[in-house]
């Protein structure tokens, strides 16, 4: 069993609700174990705050195994903290040193308004998917799953794009708060599979239009999104989306 011996200074963004102004508040924590996850360290903080009669810090989290995409902390200037390919919930305190000061902020983007403290509203992502991130096939209309062979390489590439967890780290880290990596992952997944072909060009146009409407910024290819993505979603997807978009706009006769 581990015993905690780390002392930390936390600077945490506190904001009452979406309309009020927020600020960084300092907290001292001691007895933190290196085996704790970053969120378990926040559990300790909250337990302390509740005992003292203060309001605990609100943060989003759910599965705590790196797949639901709900946790979303901007830690020391990086989404999900300093480690590559890891979500906040899978970041462990052994990545920090005794005596460290850790600054924790919410995702910041116009399209992700802060709800409270570290929790933000990412419903813009749902609306982008609702605009076209699907194959229009009603239940019960499918042919046999093996009727259409799909080359393994293509299926694997589609899977890699589909591994996106929709956490929004790409938006959070992008200097322009652009959502291109998120949108392109879904566009790519379906563009790579035969099942996605009938709506391929319609889909990319609808999704990009919705993305623009939500107020995300524009992609300037800095590559920060790819570097910070906990699931390693590749920039190739953005290029593929661009390509499909131009094909749709210039070659397709369908107005979307």
């Amino acid at each position, binding site marked *: 069993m581990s015993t905690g011996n780390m002392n930390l200074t936390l600077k945490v963004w506190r904001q009452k609700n979406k309309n009020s102004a927020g600020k960084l508040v300092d907290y001292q924590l001691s007895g933190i174990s290196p085996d704790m996850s970053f969120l378990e360290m926040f559990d300790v903080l909250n337990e302390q705050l509740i005992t003292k009669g203060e309001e605990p810090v609100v943060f989003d989290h759910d599965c705590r195994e790196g797949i639901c995409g709900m946790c979303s902390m901007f830690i020391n200037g990086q989404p999900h903290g300093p480690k590559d390919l890891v979500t906040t919930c899978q970041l462990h305190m052994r990545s920090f040193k005794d005596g460290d000061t850790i600054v924790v902020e919410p995702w910041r983007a116009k399209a992700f308004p802060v709800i409270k403290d570290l929790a933000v509203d*990412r419903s813009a992502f749902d609306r982008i998917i609702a605009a076209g991130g699907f194959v229009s096939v009603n239940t019960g209309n499918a042919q046999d799953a093996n009727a259409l062979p799909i080359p393994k390489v293509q299926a694997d590439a589609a899977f890699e794009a589909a591994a996106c967890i929709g956490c929004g780290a790409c938006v959070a880290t992008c200097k322009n708060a652009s959502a291109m990596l998120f949108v392109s992952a879904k566009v790519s997944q379906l563009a790579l599979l035969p099942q996605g072909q009938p709506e391929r060009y319609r889909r990319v146009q609808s999704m990009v239009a919705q993305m623009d409407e939500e107020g995300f910024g524009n992609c300037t290819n800095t590559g920060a999104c790819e570097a910070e993505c906990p699931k390693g979603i590749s920039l190739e997807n953005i290029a593929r989306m661009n390509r499909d978009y131009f094909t749709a706009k210039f070659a397709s006769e369908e107005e979307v």
Partner: protein
Amino acid sequence: MSKLNSNIPEGELTQKWTKYKSSIPLVNPANKRSLEVIVVGSGLAGASAAATLAEMGYKVKCFCFQDSPRRAHSIAAQGGINAAKNYQNDGDSVYRLFYDTIKGGDYRAREANVHRLAEVSVNIIDQCVAQGVPLAREYGGLLDNRSFGGTQVQRTFYAAGQTGQQLLLGAYSALERQVGMGKVQMYTRHEMLDVVVIDGKARGIIARNLITGELERHFGHAVVLGTGGYGNVFYLSTNAMGSNVTAAWKVHKKGAFFANPCYTQIHPTCIPVSGDHQSKLTLMSESLRNDGRIWVPKQKDDPRKPQDIPEEERDYYLERRYPAFGNLVPRDVASRAAKERCDAGYGVGASKLAVYLDFAANTERYGRIEASKQGNHNPDKETCMRLGREVVKEKYGNLFDMYAQITGENPYETPMRIYPAVHYTMGGVWVDYNLMTTIPGLYCTGEANFSDHGANRLGASALMQGLADGYFVLPYTIGAYLSKEIATKPIPTDHPAFVEAENNVKATIDKFLSINGTKSVDHFHKRLGHIMWEYCGMARNRQGLEKAISDIQALRREFWSDVKVPGSADEFNPELEKAHRVADFIELGELMCIDALNREESCGGHFREEHQTEEGEAKRDDENFAYVAAWEYKGESEFELHKEELNYENIKVAQRNYK
């Protein structure tokens, strides 16, 4: 007994569903447009049901407590989904899947339900592939399969170690498509806090907007729960932090029976607890047991590193005890075997509550095959391990990464340490063949109901059941009820039943905020978890269960007098949300112990120490306990047992044998 009618259709088992499906009354398209259905939960069962119902033309409202339906905990399922496709030509069939599921469930599931599940399993794979779910494929372009516990065929479809994620995102995209078309109204960050029953029928829910704290009343001609399992009653489990029993418990208190609550699945391969700070446990997919061998040292407290312990001093206890199935015995069997070894003092790691899951042998085997492919027919061990690691990485890379992340150890170099942890709950809200609860108009799907897994669920069957219920069963069977509701006009939400339900919820919230005690909600949750794990976990006995019941009752009293819920009701207040959930877990925990006490036999995930064979295997009592225990809520700590007899007409009930 009179209250329980499972409504299983007449006829021969293999024809029941086909015939019944063609005879369910239909609702014409114009009428569907005016019928409203509320779906609570947006996981595999909820999202697939909401999407399909909307596609059929019903007006749907869907609720989830997370910030997006895509976050539901189905997303964390790793290993795969079963389907009787027989793509591997290994003799699989609908009957075999049906048989394996009944046997795996230790003969405590309904034949008709399970057979239907096996029948529609093939449609699920077709549907998901059509949605663009990228399931794993072979070079020929066809779908790949792997084996899971409790079966001797390869029928598990998968997408790396993220099958649940991919299937959920498929259902989510179908759901969002309907949201975009305006046919589903989605309510995210909303939690159902009560069901509204009018004239004996479910007519709506009370939901709390978690951002504003506002209580909302929603009407529906029918209400469907797809709210998942209650494993978090143990505090530490592989469930998500938010997974809860609240919706299911509220309907139970309003008249829905709760069935087999004591059937809990303890998953054998989870990362062991590392300390008191632990907030949840992480599963290492069962698929790892395809290539990992489980062992402990033959010597107690062996101080050597696992790599240094020679082959002959290792006890591969699963292979020893169950030579036919070896490391792929069902979960309940594997978990108990691990507990047996650790209790006997052979555990490993700092806590001594762990066993090794070792990939070295198979890594070497894969490496040898790879080397041979490259023309090297006499490779040295190092080459084999190097090449084999690449293969293992391809198959399980994300799981190995996750293990390394959590433990700080490299599983490619040293065996994983694993220990059983609470994973799934077979029990749940009692439903009939139509998936309707004992409250007319209230349905329950997926893990939240009790229906298909008996006393133990086989691996890769949860995804199958969630999607079967949501895509292919409920959307048909709900027609039987809704076809009679076409004349029912939407009931205004100022109806006294809505007002009363909302007032009750409000009173509970006010109570939470007014106690102003000294201990946090988590404090009580942890204590509840300890009681449950200690006395109602992998092994149970009369004395322990009786103690647990009185401990839980005491804990409940303490909770209601000393809990501290900070903040207010009209804001985003996660502590208040937790308070609701833990209050319900405490009551459920008591019922679980009562159920476990009542079931004087061992079966599947329920192991009573008083009832075991000489070899330490679970001993069923089919004479007296071949029934579903459905509990009716009668008031605080008062539950009435109703029995639904289980009749096996097609399967010969036998002692499970995996030897």
